């Protein structure tokens, strides 16, 4: 449009232009297209898992169907939760996850405060070095850890896996908390000191309550790492008694003729739910936590 209305100035407006109407149309197509693509890619496995969880074993074996019919519908597979082995796996997962979330939240808060409020030599370099851990895949880290944990007697112990998984989430959590605390004006703490608060009291009364979004973001991140971890648990918790759910279900799948697809789907669905709910209810905080320009 504008290209034709400006014949006097041939240099100006000669570039490729799409009119406003088409542009917004394209924008929408792109937007909805990407939403749809993401939704299919992310949603399909969950849908497939869910629909199979409610079908009888026979119906699954007979061929591909997209919904359980009234004849093939069943909720009996969920009984697998009451299977003592599966129950044990779930319990282990819960204990380890709680341990990791608590450790990461507390340690990142203290470390982040230290980085944000104290200056020492090579501070930024040390903090950057923390991130080096993310260059290696979990398996590369897990094998040496196995040897170290073996020497220390930490294999098959909750505290061992909690430490390993916390270490995995910690660099991100510490960086987030560091940058978040930097956004809280120093004068707020100073005004607490002026009022007579010792440093720790200022930290607890003034800083900690304000870091809620970052704490939640960190705990969601730590939860996702711990709840979904397969590699570390598989290697550091070798005994059947102490392993967590993801390697546990893998074991079950290999060792049992009795347990079928339907049960796996049912129990997997149950295990996915906490993560979904956790993220869903905390998403507004989560976004606030990530909304730091510096990061």
């Amino acid at each position, binding site marked *: 449009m504008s290209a034709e209305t400006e014949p006097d100035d041939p240099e100006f407006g000669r570039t490729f232009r799409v009119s406003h109407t088409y542009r917004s149309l394209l924008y929408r197509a792109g937007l909805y297209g990407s939403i749809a693509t993401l939704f299919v890619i992310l949603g399909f496995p969950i849908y497939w898992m869910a629909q199979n969880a409610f079908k009888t074993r026979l119906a699954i074996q007979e061929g591909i169907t997209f919904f359980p019919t009234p004849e093939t519908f069943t909720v009996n597979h969920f009984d697998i939760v009451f299977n003592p082995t599966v129950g044990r796996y779930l319990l282990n997962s819960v204990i380890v996850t709680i341990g990791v979330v608590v450790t990461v939240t507390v340690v990142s808060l203290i470390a982040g405060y230290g980085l944000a409020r104290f200056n020492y030599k090579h501070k930024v370099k040390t903090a950057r070095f923390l991130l080096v851990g993310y260059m290696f895949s979990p398996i590369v880290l897990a094998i040496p850890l196995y040897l170290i944990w073996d020497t220390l007697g930490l294999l098959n112990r909750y505290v061992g896996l909690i430490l390993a998984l916390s270490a995995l989430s910690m660099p991100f959590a510490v960086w987030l908390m560091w940058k978040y605390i930097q956004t809280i*004006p120093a*004068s*707020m703490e*100073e*005004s*607490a*000191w*002026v*009022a*007579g*608060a*010792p440093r720790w*009291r200022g930290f607890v*009364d*003034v800083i900690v*309550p*304000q870091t809620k979004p970052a704490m939640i973001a960190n705990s969601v991140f730590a939860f996702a790492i711990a709840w979904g971890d397969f590699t570390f648990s598989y290697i550091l918790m070798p005994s059947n008694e102490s392993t967590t759910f993801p390697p546990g279900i893998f074991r079950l799948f290999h060792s049992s003729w009795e347990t079928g697809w339907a049960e796996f789907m049912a129990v997997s669905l149950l295990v996915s739910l906490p993560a979904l709910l956790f993220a869903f209810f905390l998403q507004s905080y989560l976004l606030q936590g990530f909304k730091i320009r510096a990061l």
Partner: protein
Amino acid sequence: MSEITIQNLTKTFGSLVAVDEFSLTIEDGEFITLVGPSGCGKTTTLRCVAGLESVTSGSIYFGDHDVTDYPVQQRGIALLFQDIALYPHMTVEENMAYPLKLEGMSEEQRRERVRESAELLHIEDQLEKHPNELSGGQQQRVALGRSIVREPTMFLFDEPMSDLDAKLKHELRPLFAEVTETVGCPTMYVTHDQEEAMTMSDRIAVMNDGELEQVGTPDEVYNEPETSFVGEFIGRPNMEFFDAGIDRHNGTMDLSIGDASYRLETSEALAQYAGGDVRIGIRPQDITVSEDPADGVTAEHVFDETLGDQTHSLFETPLGRITVVTPPSFRGGEGQYGLQFDTDAMKAFDPKSGLRVE
């Protein structure tokens, strides 16, 4: 409560000297404003007095107590920050009660004290709200309230109004004055705004480059600046400065600025500069404009800033550009004029040190 004495306070950051040998006594109940351009060390001085910065050398006394090495928590001061620094997660009441809570006061007493302060500041109906629901002026009131719930030994203000609009400043100035008078302790108010300093203070301390230039009442620093810096910094529009030659002549002093010459009364101090140079400062209020270009310094009018009650007119002269305060109806129309300086209002300064010559 008693006076605050600062003796030879020096603060360095590495090789940078932020405050150099600063000495000042603030009497009990006195309102002193520390004024100076950005980076002159006034905020650093305040933070040293507050205990938020450690002192490199020198000492600070509250009454007879040497508090130089006391941590901020033990000084019992009240401090109002530039960014207000209210706790966003607490209500107004909780914000104001926080210092009392730290003292371990019972909840009932806390409520009472908060209510008293809130009434003084007219915010008693805001107590349930959170700081982000309040306007800028109300937030300042709450911050002020939080500082006065406890009886402070000293009141410090760190440019509390620099982020506020002009109207709000006018509204808060008398409030600050009223509240500090009620509290009755020594007050140190830091600002870069000379107008704030002039209107609020008992005495003004002008700082430049880490050093104290002059301490005096607003009248003194305006009318009798001890250095050319003070003359330029205090008063708007800025004082105009000229290099002048000076000669003794039959019992009077002859001053030559450009082509024009002026006759001054002899003073002993001025006589020492005879035959040499001196720097002359004159306020734009003390320059008059004549229609005759031959009358005084020849000047070509550049433009007028109309303020309603007066006009600031800028002239191009052989001495450089000069601002003159002219009557409200004055319109220069880019014509030729003559500028006359009021010799009584001239202030002579040493051309090197900038110190006043009297």
